[in-house]
């Protein structure tokens, strides 16, 4: 079950869904069967490879990436991220924010209907909000919507929300999929048939789901942005990455994510190049080594800085990712607006590392090759989760590098559920290798604020810095991007100086798509943003029904 272990959530569900580019004019569907022509036409099927089955197609109940991929095609939010990660309207045509930043008024598009033909109105948006905050709904997403003081639907095409305090991620939080009120009102959501056969407003409508085997969607002819070109989308569930790759080569799959070995060596054949397009861009994720600052040895920032100096990040990128990634120096994705390029860097420098450790009192007094202080050797254990080969390889390389400066490190790999329960939640570990996915909004209050160090909370390394606390509070209460940039730039400088984590690397996303699909456009958000504009030219279509 590698799937559930892939990423601790910092879920940005709707980013990977289906997002469109309004700038491209919609070509009218032409029925001219021009064999050689590459004009966009409707038709054909795309077979998507999925490692795991979806869990639930009611977005309010689902928290896994397979479900959110599909829900992204079946439902719409009020707003969404465009290809450049700017907020744009989806079901809402436009919106206004009051001068005090406390009231958001959404003006909804008219004439949109649910897949069952019922009209979509603001009552659905209001219902969705009530559904998320209903204590009877077992959802992992209630928190953000409880900060709403009041929501109302004064007329069928206006939806208004009021907050008590300004909240920067408030606007994008309305990218949650809007649920149909007429089918869910007064029903126990956990028993609703919609969780197995959803009805949304999105570009694709649900057709069938064979558990553990496949999920089939069909294009929505009445979609408000025009019918998507690809007629059917089939998610084939293939739990093994090697099998999925074989299926890709034999034509049983058109689109999947590759791993670094597959990308760099196994796809270098002429045959592969003839049939597939590979893409490569930085993922919204990073991997880090976190030092538990409850442990006395990690309370001295010189020790943390020294360990970072002992690490050769490029070596990790080359060894673990086969060069398909880049060094990480902070919690934001390089190239996005919150990213601060000028923070302090720590080049690989064992001598400097030793010196910093000596300054902190760690020297080899007894001549056994291991640094010690007050008679105690500098030794600790890195814990990480089972099922993620890259993290384990990372741990092994770090072990070697730390040994070079006289630090002894043990590596422990533990099954996911036990790993969380026994080590991360109670904060009972020395250091850990884990990853976060990076949200497009820079608000990182839950991960870095000193109030979030309790049992089961996300600041499990117990990082406490009053200035960071203040910056994070200001950052999430300000809507002005230029001001926020100042706060988050300073926040990154402090992290770089303090090194509570050693930020290791940002891996690349490595999707591959069969060559017959045209119109794919790489953008800062990836390739899925214009999925409804992908098409297969008439002469190349493979599946005719």
């Amino acid at each position, binding site marked *: *079950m590698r799937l*559930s272990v892939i990423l*601790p*959530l*910092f*879920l940005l569900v709707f980013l990977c869904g289906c997002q469109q580019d309004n700038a491209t004019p919609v070509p009218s569907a032409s029925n001219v069967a021009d064999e050689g022509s590459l004009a966009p036409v409707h038709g054909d*099927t795309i*077979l998507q490879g999925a490692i795991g*089955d979806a*869990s*639930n197609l009611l977005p309010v*109940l*689902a*928290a896994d990436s397979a*479900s959110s991929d599909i829900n992204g095609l079946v439902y719409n939010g009020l707003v969404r991220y465009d290809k450049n990660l700017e907020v744009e309207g989806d079901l809402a045509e436009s919106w206004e924010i009051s001068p005090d930043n406390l009231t958001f008024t959404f003006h909804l598009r008219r004439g949109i209907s649910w897949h069952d033909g019922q009209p979509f109105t603001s009552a659905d948006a209001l219902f969705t909000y009530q559904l998320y905050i209903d*204590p009877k709904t*077992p959802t*992992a*997403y*209630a*928190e*953000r919507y409880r900060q709403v003081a009041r929501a109302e639907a004064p007329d069928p095409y206006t939806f208004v929300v009021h907050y008590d305090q300004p909240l920067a991620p408030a606007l994008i939080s309305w990218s949650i999929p809007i649920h149909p009120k007429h089918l869910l009102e007064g029903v126990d959501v*956990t*028993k609703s048939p919609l*969780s*197995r056969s959803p009805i949304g407003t999105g570009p694709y409508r649900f057709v069938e789901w*064979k*558990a*553990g*085997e496949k999920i089939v969607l069909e294009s929505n002819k009445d979609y408000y942005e025009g019918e998507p070109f690809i007629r059917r989308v*089939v998610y*084939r*569930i*293939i*739990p*093994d990455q*090697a*099998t*999925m790759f*074989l*299926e890709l*080569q*034999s034509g*049983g799959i058109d689109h999947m994510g590759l791993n670094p070995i597959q990308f760099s060596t196994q796809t270098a054949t002429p045959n592969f190049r003839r049939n597939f397009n590979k893409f490569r861009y930085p993922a919204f994720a990073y991997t880090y080594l976190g030092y538990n600052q409850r442990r006395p040895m990690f309370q001295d920032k010189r020790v943390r800085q020294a360990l970072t100096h002992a690490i050769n990040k490029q070596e990790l990128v080359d060894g673990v990712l086969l060069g398909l990634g880049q060094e990480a120096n902070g919690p934001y994705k390089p190239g996005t607006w919150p990213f601060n390029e000028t923070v302090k860097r720590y080049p690989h420098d064992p001598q400097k590392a030793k010196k910093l450790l000596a300054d902190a009192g760690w020297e080899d007094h007894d001549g056994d090759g291991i640094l010690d202080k007050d008679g105690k050797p500098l030794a600790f254990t890195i814990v990480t989760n089972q099922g993620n080969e890259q993290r384990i390889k990372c741990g092994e390389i770090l072990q070697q590098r730390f040994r070079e400066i006289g630090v002894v490190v043990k590596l422990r790999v533990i*099954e*996911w*559920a*036990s790993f*969380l*329960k*026994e080590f*991360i*939640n109670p904060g009972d570990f020395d250091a850990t290798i884990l990853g976060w996915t990076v949200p497009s909004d820079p608000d990182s209050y839950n*991960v870095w604020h000193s109030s979030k160090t*309790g049992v*089961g*909370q*996300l600041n499990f390394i117990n990082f406490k810095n009053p200035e960071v606390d203040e910056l994070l509070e200001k950052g999430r209460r300000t809507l002005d991007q230029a001001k926020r940039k100042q706060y988050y730039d300073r926040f990154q400088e402090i992290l770089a100086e303090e090194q509570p984590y050693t930020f290791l690397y940002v891996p690349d996303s490595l999707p591959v798509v069969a060559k017959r699909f045209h119109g794919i456009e790489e953008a800062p958000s990836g390739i899925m943003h214009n999925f409804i504009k992908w098409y297969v030219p008439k002469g190349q279509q493979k*599946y005719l*029904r």
Partner: protein
Amino acid sequence: MVPLLIGITLISFIVIHLAPGEPTDLQTQLNPEASAELQQRLRAHYGLDKPLPEQYFNWLGRLARLDFGQSFHQDHRPVLDKILERMPITILINVLSIGLILLVAIPIGIFSATHRNSMFDRATTVFVFVGFAMPSFWLALLLMDYLGVRLGWFPIAGLKSLGFEYLGLGGQILDLASHLVLPVFVSAFGGLAGFSRYMRSNMLEVIHQDYILTARAKGLSERVVILRHALRNALLPVITILGLSVPGLIGGSVIFETIFAIPGMGKLFYDGVMMRDYPLIMGVLVIGAILTLVGNLLADIGYAVADPRIRKAD
């Protein structure tokens, strides 16, 4: 049998609750949007906030009314539905694979026994042990790459082609059969060794018995001696083993189902354990326990039917 069954469920229940981690942890953990209060709410929703004995008796009470409960997985589906939907394919593959094993292992066993230490005996010994030792996932991947990708003879994974619905009945059967060739072969290959060696040693034992000598002395042909007189007796213990493999029919293999992308019981159970989906785990275990008990009973009855000495001993 009922007390035994309750004993099994009690032990299973205790063991799965000893494993660290709860289903709610996995749904809310490392999710910045989830609060501690939410986790409490989820625990109450699943009834995990009650003391363990109470949880057990609640579960047992529902079971007595044949209610296996709702899965803790985010799909919240009834456990029985999830199990029943995956059972047929698992049973089909296991039956086919046991059939194939018997079909191949019995002749190999007989021939090896009658031609003991011949070239054939040695070659098959090596062959079946290679099969036994070879990791099935590795063999599966090799076969998929060679027969599936390069030669294109068989589909690689899954059970049905796209467009299965549009095929006629004959086409559907052919499609399903071609998807089953590799999985059934791979799962049978590993099981050959045990069975054929077992058959061989039974046979060897039987052909040294006095009644075989008698049969030969009567002037029967070697063919009749071996196939009619010896084989029947040598097969007796094999039938017992078949009885014991009844519960195995619903157990799938995780590795194998994962590689071939077959939605079977093995993967269902494995995912259930990883997610700490208690009702599902208990459901699978109870059905497995019932089948084990039934299998044992069948084996006992089978013994008594086949061997008069056992009947008379009572």
